[in-house]
């Protein structure tokens, strides 16, 4: 084990590690992010190791399990270095062939390559896959290259170089200044300028100060922070050490949700390694600066992502928000000045220190600098993790990178910012995304969860889903959030069940306004957003439900019914045999009928019919 005591020692260690790596040596990089693990990547990587063993190739070919490559839709993803040949949906049966054909012979196995659905062309190399081509990966750049459990991998790619620069070449104030000039804004949702936040905490009275990494990522469908911690935890650790130096803190906490076992594990390993190498602990890199990091696993409350509730939870109190002021920078953890940033924000810090504020601020738009990672989920062809410069349009993300909506359907809207955000309808897809433009559209950047809705999505039901989520996750402390969100859920449920009344939309708007204005914390203040934005853009759908008792997307069960088109029905009996409610009758080769009394509207007949004879209205 190497203890690194000076910048010079760090530099020579890096050289040493680089020299030991043979860049031309074949490497099999297997994505071992959570998405690919679900698809079986752990078995695949084990099979590669056995295959290499069996062929006595140890030392000639290396196998590395990396963090999330981002293209979760196509997992398990395997990339062969140095050629960059990209294989998707790799199974156990493919391993031996990949080693013999591609690794040893350089031949490409066609069936494992990616086919661009737009052009129908086979794409051989990772960088040519359309999903990656429009991305600019600053934070996720090393995710496909390094083993997240190996500090040596991180060091070989220049890891902890920014820390060395900050500690030995810059004064803390200069680091704050650099981050301020970079234009970095908080990636947790609100977009507060990070440098300003740091300065407030640095200048606050008190000798003891804390920094916190908020890793309580809880928006439905969001997994940006998880993938950073799983794939490159050292970058988060390095960002935190630099921040602590800039602010003057000697203790840091990572508050991470315990539902992220792999992220917790990788972060724990990274912190341990950083301690072993001397990047954490006392007299870091000979600077005289001491800093340590503790992990605090959260117990599953969404509200604990709110900074004051998060601090209460770290202090072993009930995770309830408290009023601000005082702000954490004045009085945070245990009453001491505290700076909280989320995972992605911390991960940007080493990049800024390393490459400089000038370079960084050239990426992005006027007001929003750098890149943003989005997790693109829902009705989208290329589900996955996308890092793009600020100012990229939604249409680029949904169509060019995301490959559009499956089944040739139309895209209706994109929900941004999870339960605190709003939807952006198709007609605004060409607006460059930054903090300001999204706010104008009634959505928010949020932490980066992006849920794509196709034409079959009922926007009222969609809003109801998010309202159900927040009313469950409300801490219940203040009346507007506890009872107001519940009241909104009741109204929305009534509308989707055909019990909507005239005036319901106005009542929802009135409740929404009051919940926003009078709730105690950010959870309540933003909880009505999904409802307000769906009313803003899809008011006609609300009205159809209430006035005509009709669900235009054919989703709300109480408002639809299934029937048989006698012209098209061949009487094959497929629906009849599979109807769980035994609601379908009819003689063989005669048109069938559905008993509306018995029908439970499960839609299985609709899904099963090969002749499009089931009509839903």
């Amino acid at each position, binding site marked *: 084990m190497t203890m690194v005591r000076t910048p010079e020692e760090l530099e020579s260690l890096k050289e040493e590690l680089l020299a030991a790596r043979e860049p031309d040596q074949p490497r099999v990089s297997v994505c071992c992010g959570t998405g690919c693990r679900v698809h079986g990547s752990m078995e695949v990587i084990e099979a590669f190791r056995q295959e290499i063993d069996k062929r006595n190739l140890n030392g000639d070919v290396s196998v590395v399990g990396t963090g999330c490559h981002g293209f979760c839709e196509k997992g398990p993803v395997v990339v062969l270095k140095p050629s960059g040949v990209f294989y998707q949906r790799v199974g156990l049966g493919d391993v031996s062939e990949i080693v013999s054909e591609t690794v040893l012979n350089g031949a490409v196995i066609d069936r494992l390559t990616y086919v661009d659905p737009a052009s129908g062309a086979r794409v051989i190399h990772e960088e040519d896959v359309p999903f990656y081509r429009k991305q600019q990966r600053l934070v996720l750049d090393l995710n496909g290259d390094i083993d997240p459990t190996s500090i040596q991998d991180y060091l070989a790619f220049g890891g902890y170089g920014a820390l060395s620069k900050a500690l030995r070449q810059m004064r803390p104030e200069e680091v704050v200044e650099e981050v301020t000039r970079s234009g970095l804004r908080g990636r947790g949702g609100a977009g507060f300028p990070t440098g300003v936040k740091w300065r407030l905490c640095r200048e606050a009275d008190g000798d003891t100060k804390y920094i916190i990494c908020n890793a309580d990522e809880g928006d439905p469908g969001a997994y940006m922070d998880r993938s950073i911690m799983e794939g490159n935890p050292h970058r988060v650790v390095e960002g935190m050490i630099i921040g602590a130096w800039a602010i003057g803190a000697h203790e840091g906490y990572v508050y991470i949700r315990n539902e992220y076992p792999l992220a917790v594990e990788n972060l724990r390993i990274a912190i341990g390694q950083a301690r072993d190498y001397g990047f954490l602990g006392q007299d870091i890199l000979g600077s005289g600066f001491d800093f340590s990091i503790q992990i605090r696993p959260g117990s599953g409350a969404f509200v604990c992502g709110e900074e004051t509730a998060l601090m209460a939870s770290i202090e072993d109190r009930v995770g309830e928000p408290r*009023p601000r002021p005082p702000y954490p920078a004045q009085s945070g953890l245990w009453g001491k000045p505290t700076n909280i940033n989320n995972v992605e924000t911390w991960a940007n810090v080493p990049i800024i220190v390393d490459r400089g504020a000038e370079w960084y601020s050239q990426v992005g738009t006027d007001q929003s600098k750098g890149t943003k990672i989005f997790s693109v989920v829902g009705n989208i062809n290329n589900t996955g993790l996308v890092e793009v410069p600020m100012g990229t349009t939604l249409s680029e993300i949904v169509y060019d990178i995301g490959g559009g909506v499956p089944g040739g359907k139309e895209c209706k809207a994109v929900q941004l910012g999870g339960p605190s955000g709003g939807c952006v309808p198709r007609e605004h897809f060409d607006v460059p995304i930054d903090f300001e433009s999204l706010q104008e559209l009634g959505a928010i950047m949020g932490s980066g969860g992006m849920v794509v809705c196709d034409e079959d999505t009922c926007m009222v039901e969609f809003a109801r889903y998010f309202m159900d989520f927040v009313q*469950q996750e*409300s801490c219940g*402390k203040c009346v507007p959030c*506890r009872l107001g969100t519940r009241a909104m859920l009741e109204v929305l449920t009534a509308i989707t069940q055909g019990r909507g009344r005239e005036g319901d939309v106005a009542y929802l708007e009135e409740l929404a306004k009051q919940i926003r204005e*009078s709730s105690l914390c950010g959870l309540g203040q933003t909880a009505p957003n999904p409802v307000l934005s769906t009313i803003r853009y899809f008011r006609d759908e609300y009205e159809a439900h209430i006035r005509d008792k009709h669900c235009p997307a054919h989703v709300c069960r109480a408002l639809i019914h299934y029937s048989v088109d006698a012209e098209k029905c061949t009487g094959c009996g497929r629906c009849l045999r599979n109807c769980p409610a035994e609601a379908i009758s009819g003689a063989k080769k005669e048109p069938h009928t559905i008993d509306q009394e018995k029908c439970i509207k499960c839609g299985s007949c609709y899904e099963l019919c090969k002749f499009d004879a089931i009509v839903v209205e």
Partner: protein
Amino acid sequence: MITLTINGREVKATEGSTILEAARESGIEIPTLCYHEALEPYGSCRLCVVELATPRGPRLVASCVYPAEEGALVKTDSEMVQSSRRVTAELLLAAAPNARVIRELANKLGVKEPRISLGDSNCILCGLCVRACREIVGANAISLVNRGFTKEVRPPFEIGSNACIGCTTCVFICPTGAIKLEDVLANRSVHRWASAFEARACKICGDHYLAPEFVAEVGQPLEETGV
């Protein structure tokens, strides 16, 4: 002393006081439910909201927790404030239609029938009982548990807690009468917390009056008085 303006009137206040304290000291009434001057402010009922002028426009703040700042411009009775209080009162009425204090409050704010029903519990989760038990009594016998609509005040693990000393402070501080005290001869119980005590009898009149656990907690001074 600092100076702020409430409802167009210049008002002096001690530094470090809240807007609510500043207003009340000057005789300006602001309705509250979860506030009690003997306890740390909690900011949960949101009835005490007032309109505060900020560079980004007017916003509502809970006056019981928001500091009175030099030069602040505050309105306690504007339309913004009134409409917020009405919705809050309506929500409380929808959840606790039989609590007298809520009915009176709603009535005062002009709220007749709630447009929705959110159950029928007299506990409005103002937290006064929990905070009194913790901050004044020091017993910590009850706590707020669960989240959102399922939140409630409970003793640990739903069973009577040894921490409860039967002082009944919670019973008396509860604004809605949701916590009932039952005294039958020597048997004193607070059913809500599953707490039961055998009350001590007065040496003079023979009436049962205090739980011995409470006497033990309050200690010697009371013993010496001979009651």
